[in-house]
């Protein structure tokens, strides 16, 4: 297998796309059109063993991409990437349609973790961490949210105390996707309680299998146990694993959150077709359910299938239009909150449409009927689409305040963080 890692950066996109097409056809397995999706969109019938097999497949597919010269297309060659442009990545993503690819490890490994390392990491950190990411050897997680509050990231209570060349971390993190099978994590911690909350934070990198770090699984309403909570008790982190300046964590966080939001589109670091024909509650899936129930020709069924499909198509159009306008500067990057809001609310609506389509058949099912189970389970957990990755309430605040220039909400957390109210007195 020949490597194309020494391709010059000015290789024309068309030529690159043609090579990708040929390479994919020869090397990449086809996508399984019936495969469910990881994460809270799929139902509970899978086992941990099943998930671990899939994660191993992702690692292998990532290695395949790396050896073929298609991993880290926009990452510099010295870190194991291809040194090409977002247009090359976009072309590769177009060619990828119909092929299996390591979709489950794009977030959090490449965005935000690799993207943040590229912006804030030292040369040593980049050389040490990015090549294993691109080879599928290191899967990363984000230790960000805390049990005390999900939306207020700057209110982190997990504390890092300096001890010579080391830091001692104590606290708890939550809503970590896939921490139980991940290798490394990026962690936000408080290093100074005497200053305003944004000014006392620092970001660290740490391995997930380290003394003092316990990982628990959380069960969602649909039975998914993908999310984790971590308990950190005197976890030791070397100062060389600090990312960015001491107390400069919010500068890193701003970009971290930005990269995290680009999962809905527009990141130069994501290898994904950006669309899924088998998404839960999208028109084609609902059509399959209606066929099974024998209602596919009912006018109301057609209307529900059409409305669900319309939401997907409008959402896709919105995301790519907002992404393009952010790239040209026509819209500020806060505009990504519109994509977040629309995709959250439309997923909620699609879950409701699916249940309306099935009625009684969506609230009970024979064991093993994943189609109908998917309807009921995804309805139960549907609000996750408006909560995870930043609530839609926060997105509305960002749109109103940052995009439309409306007055900011009053704050009661602008003094020293030690004195900020953290609960009823």
């Amino acid at each position, binding site marked *: 297998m020949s490597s194309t890692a020494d391709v010059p950066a000015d290789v024309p996109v068309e030529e690159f796309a043609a090579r990708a097409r040929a390479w994919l056809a020869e090397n990449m397995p086809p996508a399984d059109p019936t495969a469910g999706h990881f994460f809270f969109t799929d139902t509970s019938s899978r086992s941990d063993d099943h998930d671990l097999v899939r994660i191993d497949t992702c690692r292998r597919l990532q290695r395949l991409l790396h050896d073929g010269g298609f991993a880290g297309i926009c990452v510099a060659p010295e870190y194991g990437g291809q040194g090409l442009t977002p247009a090359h990545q976009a072309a590769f993503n177009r060619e990828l349609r119909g092929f299996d690819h390591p979709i489950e490890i794009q977030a959090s490994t490449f965005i935000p973790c690799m993207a943040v390392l590229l912006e804030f990491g030292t040369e040593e950190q980049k050389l040490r961490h990015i090549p294993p990411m691109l080879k599928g050897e290191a899967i990363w997680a984000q230790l960000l949210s805390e049990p005390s509050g999900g939306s207020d990231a700057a209110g982190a209570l997990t504390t890092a105390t300096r001890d010579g060349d080391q830091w001692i971390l104590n606290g708890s993190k939550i809503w970590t996707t896939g921490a139980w099978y991940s290798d490394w994590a990026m962690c936000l911690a408080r290093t100074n309680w005497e200053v305003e909350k944004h000014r006392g934070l620092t970001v660290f990198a740490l391995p997930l299998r380290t003394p003092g770090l316990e990982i628990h699984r959380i069960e969602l309403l649909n039975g998914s146990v993908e999310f984790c909570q971590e308990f950190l008790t005197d976890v030791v982190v070397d100062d060389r694993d600090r990312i960015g300046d001491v107390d400069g964590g919010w500068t890193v966080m701003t970009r971290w959150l930005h990269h995290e939001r680009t999962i809905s589109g527009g990141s130069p670091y994501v290898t994904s077709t950006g669309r899924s024909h088998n998404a839960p509650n999208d*028109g084609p899936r609902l059509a399959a359910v209606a066929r099974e129930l024998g209602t596919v020709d009912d006018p109301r*069924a057609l*209307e529900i299938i059409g409305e669900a499909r*319309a939401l997907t198509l*409008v959402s896709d*159009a919105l995301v790519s*239009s907002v992404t393009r306008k952010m790239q040209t500067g026509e819209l500020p990057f806060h505009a990504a909150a519109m994509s977040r*809001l629309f995709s959250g609310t439309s997923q909620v609506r699609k879950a409701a449409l699916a249940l309306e389509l099935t009625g009684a058949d969506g609230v009970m099912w024979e064991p093993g009927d994943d189609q109908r189970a998917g309807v009921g389970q995804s309805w139960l957990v549907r609000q996750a689409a408006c909560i995870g990755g930043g609530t839609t309430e926060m997105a509305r605040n960002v749109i*109103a305040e940052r*995009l439309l220039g409306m007055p900011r909400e009053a704050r009661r957390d602008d003094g020293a963080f030690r004195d900020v109210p953290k609960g009823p007195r």
Partner: protein
Amino acid sequence: MFAQSEDQQVFESTSARFVESQYPAERVRALARAEAVFEAPLWREAAALGWTTLLVPESAGGGSLSGNGLADLLIVASLFGRHAAPGPLFGTNLVARALGTWGSADQQAGPLAEILAGDAVAAWGHRSACTATRSSTGVVVSGRVRSVESAADARYVLVSVDEPEGRSHVLVPLAAPGVALTPLKGVDQTRRFWDVTLDGVTLPGAAWVGAMGAAAEHDDELLDVASVLALGEMAGALHRAFAMTLDWVANRYSFGRPLNSYQEIKHRMADLRTQVEAAEAVAARAASLVGSGSGSGSGSGSGRALASAGMAHVGRHGPEAIQDCIQLHGGIGVTNDCDLHLFLRRTVLDANLYGSPAEFARRLGRLVVAQGVAG
């Protein structure tokens, strides 16, 4: 809003100047109460700006700016929405598209040339229930065509008729004997409609447009184009209603605070802003795909899927969004003293004229079902 290339930007600014000077709000308000809204000399000027040629191939006397005439025309449709402008933009362009694509040489040299020059206005009879019988000299058409825009000002209406070979299109001169018009009242006071009755209207055999039996397929194509124009107009109207409301909530004070300092109001404005962006995005993508004849089925590359998705979504949420703008204005919003109603009227007309949002959802649903699991 929809202009991309430099040519399109020039076209947008000249078209915008024309619409702004001819149809300021006070004139639109006056026309709402006027007996007639159509002015022939003005339409000729509009044609000179290029508003009638964009959907017609060069070989038939038309021409586009960008190679995608529908994407070009979307710019004008959105300006119409922003100003709630009157004028036979939709019907004239739809019939021009039909004659330019399927018309005979005689039809292109005659009626189409009149339309391109702005000398004649035309209408698409999309709600036709007519039958035709062959006579020795041609064809005799009878029936009723509902909701024909500008019928009293138009020279031609394109009508689909049931005849022995199936459903076929015929171009009916509205001055022909046997044609009777019934004026209609409606929610939009500056776009006027008539029911047209055809009672034994005799036409020459040369009146057929396109292959015999092809009208159902051709009407489906015209519906895609009409959908894009309606989406452009709705997006323009939404944009304007939103801008008015954003100003209003900044300048109106209650309990010593501007309305826009209340989180409830901020969140509603965030939802509205997102719907405006969604409407623009789906209109642009639908124009790009329908105008280039791309794709089929229910996928994201299919013009018909995008046009139907747009009409199902924006048709349902667009008028609701403007009703919410009215709610945010309070009492003044439900009076004729506040211009919001102009945009409300235009949007709810566009959202229903060619079929309800539910009908467009079913149209898309049928595409999904026909495509099977692969989607």
